[in-house]
């Protein structure tokens, strides 16, 4: 059973990689990253459920990953807002030059 769940997780991760690499809009890139984190959560829980005998540290890892996701999202949006405010740019191509 754990193989099936890991396959699902791998598929979600693949879609996330595609999204993060192909999208131009900053927020869409973040959606790709979130999908990758989604896959990670699924894989961790699958391992926790199937191979660790219910070690609570597996769950703790999921909680930490969720915290990382919240941090990524908050910081990401904040930076996108700051970049937009100063450079009026919402896609990566407008940021070829990072210095003013």
């Amino acid at each position: 059973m754990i193989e099936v769940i890991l396959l699902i997780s791998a598929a979600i991760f693949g879609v996330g990689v595609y999204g993060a690499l192909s999208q131009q809009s900053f927020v869409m890139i973040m959606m790709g990253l979130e999908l990758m984190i989604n896959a990670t959560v699924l894989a961790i829980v699958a391992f926790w459920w199937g191979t660790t005998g219910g070690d609570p540290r597996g769950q703790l890892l999921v909680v930490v990953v969720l915290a990382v996701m919240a941090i990524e999202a908050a910081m990401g949006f904040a930076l996108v807002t700051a970049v937009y405010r100063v450079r009026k740019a919402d896609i990566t191509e407008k940021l070829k030059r990072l210095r003013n």
Partner: protein
Amino acid sequence: MGGLGGALVVLLAAAVAALVARWLSTVLEPTTLTVPERVPFAGGVPPEVHAWNRYHIRYYVMALLFLAFDMEMVFMYPWAVVFVKEGIVALVEMLMFILILVVGMVYTWRERGFTWA
């Protein structure tokens, strides 16, 4: 799964019932509206552009704070379950955690994050 299977069935049943009600109304009485009838209400003036447009959401700083603050809920649910067994240790640890987060809340408040920016 047990009980949550029942919850899932109820969830789907309610959603399907509402969707069927809507579908029945379109099947039983198909209406074709003329173009002026389809204009969205905008206080009497016909709108010139689509409503879906770029829009300045003026509470976005608060939204960022919510993203970070909401994480505290994830820690708090398991904490509440074991609170009585752990006793004073649990109280002090969570108090520390919350006080750290409240500093962020107060900072945002002082930076006028809860006003319309």
